[in-house]
């Protein structure tokens, strides 16, 4: 049922599912010829610039755009007064103004936008807009947001979930408590936001951008433009990379307004600073935990309070909170759980969907608790975890029964039993990359090695009753197939997967995936691994319908059912080998089309006590981290991450490995360096020097020690999405290893150097 990738043969090129088909655009991306949104050009192009608030909280007394509008080269200046349609928008709740009108709620909020014939002119004109602010005291502590004056007409409480499961009176023999803080990770996408808006002769507008959810972006923009959705078209350009929602409509809506106003194409290419200020971040979270266990280390009860800092606007905070509360106990069997979660509005930068939202923060906390419990009981941390792991058939604290494969014990055993990396004690100077890097200050004598464990879980697809549906069309003519599906390939490899699915079903070598735009039927956002499942399922169904159309006449002619015919290498053969013809012959020059939908089984919202079958499916992962810590400087290097993951079925081995490696590296970043710092609501150093991403020297050796292929029967192909769960689990594993190396509690992520120092 499981495979060990360290011993499998190197995969050759092939077709269909299960082979490492390379991405169709890999070569163009490598050679720099792949067109991204920032490369787009149009005749008579104007450049946009957005004026952003320098204050986290202020009342706008007046906005005077006359100086900007009179500057030579400036073609249009728009503010809140120029929004013809809805004044507010939001991916989940429409609570965010297109342009701040009376109140600024976070540093970097858009106030006005300018279109000019040169990017510098646009920037200078934006700076020339005179805004008079009455600066207000910012609310930056989510704990204080409860009692603070409402920052928004919707109030400061965005969502509250009081989960209650079991008997509150039960207590355990051993109790451990902890307070944990998780920082603000940014998606820091490759390539900052960029878009081109082109007005249409019918009064509509086309927006070319790297959207990850084009239909939602179109609907939001159309509402703000006061246009029917048919008059707005979002065309998805190449996505440089995305690990959350990409291309905030906060960039596209002002751009579309400027294009409609000027009648000219308008382009915007955000700076990295704007990108940091504009888009959504991972929720900074404060967590308070109390774990009860019996003397053998079996969990009895978990009590937790989880406070998410949602920033100024709701965005996806409600979903993040649901995930945080539901997975607050982790993939462990917990008979009694009382978890209270809040998402609070503050004047901090906006929070939203980032891979592993909610689940990552709680994983860091519950795994810290497990380490504490192991310490108190004198048990090996891996053994304590093993005594509590969840399995198929167990019940989550939300009351939902785990029906999908949940091979958590097998995953944990795999990473526990994998040989540890050796210490290069013989020639440490040459072979040992110490914390601090080559030519760094590290000294072998001050370095301690630690080993830590974490297991994590995420839900797949949208939760709590979200209508998850995707539509795909497959067309075949002259031996070439085309897939038309509005699922955006964010770098997740969906388009490669779509080709493999069609190759598998139709036996066609050449498969093209059409570019995405909103004239196609919606496929939903590229989040929570949904395209592997939902869009992949739709592509498979459409391909099967084409297959039936192709084989039906033959089957009829030979008096057998289509199931008895198979397609391989462009040939159609019957089960007994009597009949044989080529696909081209069977097609008879016809063009075959089919469109199909995939809609997984419905879910339900969590009720007033946090109960409900809210998730379509779950994915699990176990990680063992090995770290070296220079205990005098507090410098940490992650040496190795051993990963075992529950993947359902491997559809593309190379792509799957890459996704896990990327997820682990993102998690290492969250554990050690990635934190967008603010002080009193102001973002400090919004650039890639101030916000340190992992470099190749920071990325550990990633050993994928086991991929458990237990097919999830409700998922198309039985495959589980793989990208998010390593992101969720890695930070907790690194923290656990630093704890083991230093004996320090490590209750804050990213881990600050002073938290990893051992004072003699």
């Amino acid at each position: 049922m499981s495979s060990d990738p360290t011993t499998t043969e190197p995969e050759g090129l092939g077709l269909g599912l299960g082979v490492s088909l390379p991405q169709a655009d890999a070569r163009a991306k490598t050679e720099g010829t792949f067109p991204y949104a920032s490369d787009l050009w149009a005749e008579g192009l104007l450049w946009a610039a957005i004026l952003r608030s320098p204050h986290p909280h202020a009342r706008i007394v007046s906005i005077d755009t006359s100086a900007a509008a009179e500057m030579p080269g400036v073609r249009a200046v728009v503010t809140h007064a120029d929004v013809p349609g809805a004044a507010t928008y939001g991916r989940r709740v429409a609570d965010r103004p297109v342009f701040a009108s009376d109140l600024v709620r976070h540093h970097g909020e858009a106030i006005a936008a300018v279109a000019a014939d040169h990017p510098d002119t646009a920037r200078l004109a934006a700076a020339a807009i005179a805004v008079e602010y009455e600066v207000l005291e910012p609310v930056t502590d989510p704990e204080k947001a409860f009692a603070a004056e409402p920052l928004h007409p919707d109030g400061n409480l965005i969502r509250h979930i009081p989960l209650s499961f079991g008997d509150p009176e039960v207590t355990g023999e051993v109790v451990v408590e902890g307070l944990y803080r998780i920082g603000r990770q940014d998606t820091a996408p490759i390539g900052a936001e960029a878009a081109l808006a082109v007005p249409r002769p019918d009064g509509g507008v086309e927006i070319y951008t790297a959207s990850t959810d084009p239909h939602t972006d179109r609907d939001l923009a159309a509402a703000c433009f006061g246009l029917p959705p048919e008059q707005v078209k979002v065309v998805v350009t190449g996505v440089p990379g995305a690990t959350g929602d990409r291309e905030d409509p906060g960039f596209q809506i002002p751009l579309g307004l400027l294009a409609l106003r000027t009648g000219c194409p308008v382009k915007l290419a955000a700076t990295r600073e704007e990108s940091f200020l504009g888009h959504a971040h991972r929720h900074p979270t404060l967590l308070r935990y109390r774990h009860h266990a019996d003397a053998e280390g079996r969990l009895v009860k978990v009590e937790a309070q989880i406070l998410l800092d949602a920033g100024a606007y709701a965005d996806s905070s409600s979903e993040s909170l649901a995930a945080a509360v539901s997975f607050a106990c982790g993939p462990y069997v917990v008979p009694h759980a009382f978890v209270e979660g809040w998402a609070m509005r503050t004047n901090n930068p906006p929070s939203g969907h980032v891979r592993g939202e909610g689940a990552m923060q709680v994983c860091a906390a519950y795994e810290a608790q497990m380490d504490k419990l192991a310490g108190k009981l004198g048990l090996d941390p891996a053994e304590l975890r093993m005594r509590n792991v969840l399995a198929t058939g167990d019940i989550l604290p939300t009351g939902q029964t785990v029906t999908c494969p949940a091979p958590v014990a097998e995953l944990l055993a795999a990473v526990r039993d994998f040989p540890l990396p050796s210490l290069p004690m013989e020639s440490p100077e040459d072979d040992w990359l110490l914390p601090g890097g080559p030519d760094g200050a590290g000294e072998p004598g001050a370095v301690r090695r630690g080993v830590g464990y974490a297991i994590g879980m995420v839900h797949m697809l949208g939760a709590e009753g979200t209508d998850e549906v995707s539509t795909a069309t497959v067309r075949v003519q002259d031996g070439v197939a085309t897939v038309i599906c509005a699922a955006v390939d964010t770098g997740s490899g969906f388009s490669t997967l779509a080709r493999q699915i069609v190759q598998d079903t139709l036996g066609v070598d050449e498969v093209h995936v059409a570019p995405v735009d909103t004239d196609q039927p919606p496929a939903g956002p590229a989040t929570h691994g949904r395209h592997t499942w939902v869009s992949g399922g739709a592509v498979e169904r459409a391909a099967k319908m084409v297959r039936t159309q192709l084989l039906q006449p033959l089957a009829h002619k030979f008096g057998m059912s289509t199931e008895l015919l198979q397609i391989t290498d462009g040939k159609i053969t019957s089960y007994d080998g009597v009949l044989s013809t080529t696909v081209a012959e069977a097609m008879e020059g016809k063009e075959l089309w089919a469109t199909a939908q995939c809609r997984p089984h419905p879910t339900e919202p969590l009720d007033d006590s946090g109960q409900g079958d809210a998730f379509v499916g779950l994915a699990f992962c176990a990680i063992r981290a090995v770290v070296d810590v220079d205990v005098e400087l507090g410098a940490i290097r992650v040496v190795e991450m051993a990963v075992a993951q529950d993947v359902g079925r491997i559809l593309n081995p190379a792509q799957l490995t890459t996704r896990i490696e990327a997820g682990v590296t993102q998690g290492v970043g969250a554990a050690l360096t990635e934190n967008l710092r603010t002080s009193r609501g102001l973002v400090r150093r919004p650039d890639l020097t101030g916000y340190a991403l992992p470099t190749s020297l920071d990325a550990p050796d990633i050993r994928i020690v086991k991929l458990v292929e237990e097919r999830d029967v409700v998922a198309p192909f039985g495959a589980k999405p793989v990208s998010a769960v390593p992101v969720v689990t890695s930070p907790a594993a690194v923290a656990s290893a630093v704890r083991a190396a230093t004996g320090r509690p490590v209750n804050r992520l990213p881990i600050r150097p002073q938290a990893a120092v051992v004072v003699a």
Partner: protein
Amino acid sequence: MTLPASLDEAVAALTAMPAAVPVAGGTDLMAAVNRGQLRPAGLVGLGRINEIRGWQYQDGHALLGAGLTHARMGRPDFAALIPALAAASRVAGPPQIRNAGTLGGNVVSAAPTGDSLPVLAALEAELVVVGPLGTRELPVGHLLAGRDMLAPGELVAFVRVPLLHAPQVFLKATGRTGPARATASVAVVLDPARRGVRCAVGAIAPMPLRPLEAEQWIASLVDWDAERGLAPEALTAFGEYVAAACIPDPEGDEPLPPAVLHLRRTVAALSRRALGRALS
């Protein structure tokens, strides 16, 4: 943009257009331009001035061209001359930065995290400045402290450093294993001829700090005529002496904030390790 081929031409170009900004590697300047913080009226490129791209020897000193790149200074032949400057150059950012960024640029940008600056401070380097009124020299510390500024039309042409023929160490602490700006850095150079130890701490203040008393105290403990090694306790005491001198206790009973305390411990550990390596 003009591209003079000699220092004289560069000075003439800057004198003719006082608003122009000289640019060498551009690793700081162009980043500021791209951020919209700087919009120079003109640029005088220094990349074609061959006389400042190498070094020459001058009565016990090396006269280093201001156009030497970090990559060039990181090579073994340079490391044999001025080991600490080579070590600082090797960690002064990713390869793209080291290939372009120059010694003169590091001095003139005077960023607190400039990795070459504590080394130049410990070496008590002199800057050779050319300008419309001729050539003058000033200690690097004077420029970094703002005691002496470059006049219009003036350029840092060379950096004069003594050749000490003794161990030198540069260490820096950063937030990650890959290239990053220093949170603290320490340069320690030995000067056996003058029986001196010189130390400078970078990145924790706007300019490198010299703990002069700690230097004198530790130099008095070293046996300059025999094995120079010191007991671990002496190294530890030196580290703490340096750290306390650079990050003094606050007035009154207030304890140091945790982050500052950590910085002080970092400086102590770096100083101890640097001196230990220099004397080993």
